[in-house]
């Protein structure tokens, strides 16, 4: 056992796939940053709101006002440097920190694929992605043909986790037996050419998409791993992601997944890409560069435990929901960071009552006095948002001179085609409740059942 682990850790593989991955990742991130900027989202999401929702434990993260643009510039430059492989280690650390900081500034925009970018860039800090076909290699006049095998495998594992866990999450009665939420979403895509008016409203189509989506997610990592099915699997990856791109406003995610999936191909394929791009960009093959066969990892005793622990956590974190009572889709305790994508059509309406605990005099809050439409939408059905906002309101009105401030929420939530139902116990003063990892007793029980994982 021990020796097989040892020999695995000593096994090497061609460095080209990781180099191509680095370039693809860097360029896509650069494009994402530019796209985000061009859409004006830096302004509307990070600068305009007077209040920002923060992740539990990261309340200390400050928003930067107009300096947010500088943070995006840093992140964009870091992406470019990662792609070029110039000062790679510094660049990827800067990318990880700046990108993650941007995400931590506002919980409202949480997306699984942003989290995936943070996870991926964290692990890339420890990988020798600049060993081959990079400016660093040219400058140091040394490049390495081979790198430890686990480095590429760890990226494959992360990709595999995303797909497989997304597939596991689809094994539930709403998805498979009611075809929800696709049954709600697909008919509204009636204006897509050809299939809009013919397929999108068909009951069998909703079920076909639900089941094939589940099977796709579960199988694709294995189909990509196995050489004989790899080409076919990649075609599926392209079709699947392009299709979801057409149907849903999911931004860069499909492209990130398509480009990332290339890493499953063998070295010949990636060497061809490198040769091709060298020709295209007229990069002179630098003869002065010494090519060594195997890259030797420095600080192995530090890097290996970190990477192992991190990957183990990635396997475990999605299952933390098992520690909470109640329906996961309803309470969302343990929902994030678990690759649960496209599983719910959930909308809520939550209003807040500010009560003077002594006199019992009260008034309601108009949410749009404090929140942007996007924030209000997200706040209305997620308990941790509701609690955080209740505290913000409590503090706000206390500062305004109101006395004995108590904050109560009146909340209704509709999930996957069910009629909206009361969501929060109206008699609980949320201003007195603290955010913790413990179950939130003030979330009312879900009066239906969703079977499954």
């Amino acid at each position, binding site marked *: 056992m021990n020796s097989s682990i040892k020999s695995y850790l000593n096994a090497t593989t061609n460095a080209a796939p990781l180099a191509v991955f680095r370039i693809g990742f860097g360029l896509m991130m650069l494009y994402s940053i530019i796209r985000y900027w061009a*859409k004006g*989202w830096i302004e*509307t*999401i990070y600068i305009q709101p007077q209040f920002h929702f923060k992740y539990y434990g990261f309340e200390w993260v400050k928003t930067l006002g107009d300096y947010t643009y500088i943070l995006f510039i840093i992140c964009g430059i870091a992406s470019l440097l990662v792609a070029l492989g110039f000062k790679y280690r510094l660049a990827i650390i800067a990318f990880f920190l700046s990108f993650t900081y941007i995400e931590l500034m506002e919980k409202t*925009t949480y*997306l*699984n*694929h942003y989290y995936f970018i943070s996870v991926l860039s964290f692990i890339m800090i420890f990988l020798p992605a600049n060993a081959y076909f990079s400016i660093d290699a040219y400058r140091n006049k040394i490049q390495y043909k081979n790198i430890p095998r686990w480095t590429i495998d760890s990226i494959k594992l992360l990709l595999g986790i995303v797909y497989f866990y997304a597939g596991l999450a689809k094994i539930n009665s709403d998805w498979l037996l009611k075809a929800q939420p696709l049954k*709600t*979403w697909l*008919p*509204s*895509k*009636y*204006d897509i050419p*050809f*299939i809009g*008016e*013919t*397929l999108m*409203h068909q009951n069998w189509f909703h079920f076909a998409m639900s089941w094939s989506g589940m099977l796709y997610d579960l199988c694709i990592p294995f189909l990509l791993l196995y050489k004989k099915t790899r*080409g076919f699997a*990649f*075609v599926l990856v*392209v*079709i699947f992601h*392009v299709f979801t791109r057409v149907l849903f*406003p*999911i*931004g*860069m*995610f499909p492209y990130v997944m398509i480009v990332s999936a290339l890493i499953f*191909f063998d070295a*010949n*394929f990636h060497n*061809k890409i490198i040769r*091709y791009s060298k020709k295209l960009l007229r990069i002179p093959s630098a003869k002065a560069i010494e090519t060594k066969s195997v890259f030797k990892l420095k600080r192995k005793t530090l890097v290996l435990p970190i990477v192992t622990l991190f990957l183990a956590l990635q396997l475990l974190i999605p299952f933390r929901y098992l520690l909470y009572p109640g329906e996961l889709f309803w309470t969302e305790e343990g929902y994030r960071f678990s690759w649960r*994508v*496209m599983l719910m*059509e*959930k*909308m*809520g*309406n939550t*209003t807040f009552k500010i009560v003077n605990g002594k006199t019992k*005099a009260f*008034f*309601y809050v*108009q949410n749009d006095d404090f929140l942007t*439409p*996007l924030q209000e*939408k997200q706040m*209305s*059905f997620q308990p941790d948002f509701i609690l955080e906002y209740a505290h913000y309101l409590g503090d706000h009105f206390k500062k305004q001179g109101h006395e004995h401030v108590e904050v109560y929420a009146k909340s*209704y*939530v*509709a999930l996957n*085609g069910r*009629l*909206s139902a009361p969501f929060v116990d109206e008699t609980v003063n949320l201003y007195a409740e603290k955010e913790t990892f413990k179950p939130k007793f003030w979330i009312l029980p879900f009066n239906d059942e969703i079977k499954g994982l």
Partner: protein
Amino acid sequence: MLKRIILVTLVVSAILACSSSDDSNSGNNSSDTYNRTAMLTNIADNIIIPGYQNLSTDLSTLVDSKNAFVANVNQTNLETLRTNWFNAYQSFQAVQMFQIGKAEEILFEEQMNIYPTNTTDIENNIANGNYDLSSVNNNDAVGFPAVDYMLYGVADNDAAILTTLSNANYSNYLSDLIDRMQTLTNTVLTDWTSGYRDNYITNTANVASGAVNQTLNAYVFYYEKRLRADKVGIPAGVFSSTPLPSKVEVLYKEDNSRTLLLEALNAVQDVFNGKAINSNIEGESYKNYLIALDRNDLAEVINDRFDAARTKIEALNTNLKTQVETDNTKMTEAYDALQLAVVSLKSDMLSAFNVSVSYVDADGD
């Protein structure tokens, strides 16, 4: 390998594209997709356009009686003027929720019904005699609420009101207010009847600028903000430490504030059910759309909640200001009933239609 993959990808996409276009030919389309054009046609032809026509007719009657009054300031002419003003105000309740197209462009709602009206601005305008009624600064000094003040609030009793309105500065302002309301309404109506309607009924794309999306967003926004909050919530003090009875919709002809509220609620429910404005015929509607999506349950809940809200409102004093001042609990109960329908419209109905909402712009996953 790279070439092969590109090739395979292209071939498969081509097959996918072709096979789906074959489907659309053989499947002989859309027998069981909901016909959104029919719904928009019903809303445009039987609700919006006749709604504006009614308002336009009422306003030209109002203009006539105003002219008669200005020519001859007396109690009889004042009474006629008042009656015609209130008739037009009632008709307006049926169109305010359609703040789309031309109405949105020219800020129709903002120039017709901002209340409470700003009496200081009105008096200053009258004193200066030099005013631009289309200015944003004058939004709270024009429209129905401003006329309400001119006809009922400008002095303590009718004799004094007649004396004040005999002053040319006052009668000019009153005249300009009413003329402007007519101009604005006819601008919107003409736009509908001269081309906009045809674009509207075919603009069924599910994008933020689609007609279904815009109409729905304006509808839900109107119900939540203009009806639930402005007409009931704010005067009842649900958003403030104390009730604010002087924020009711018709502050000066105060006996009739409930009438306008009921008109507005009926109009909202009629649009939901696709009921024509000038008859009892029901056509394609949000209700039928929900039923087509298999959400009969929701369609029923929404109608039940509108009905429940109406019952609560009918229990109120015809003078909402008096109601707030004497027994505000009934007013807040009406607010709560109205709020329940907001829940159904916003979280259930918009979710069921899955419409793109213009003001929420970000990626999903």
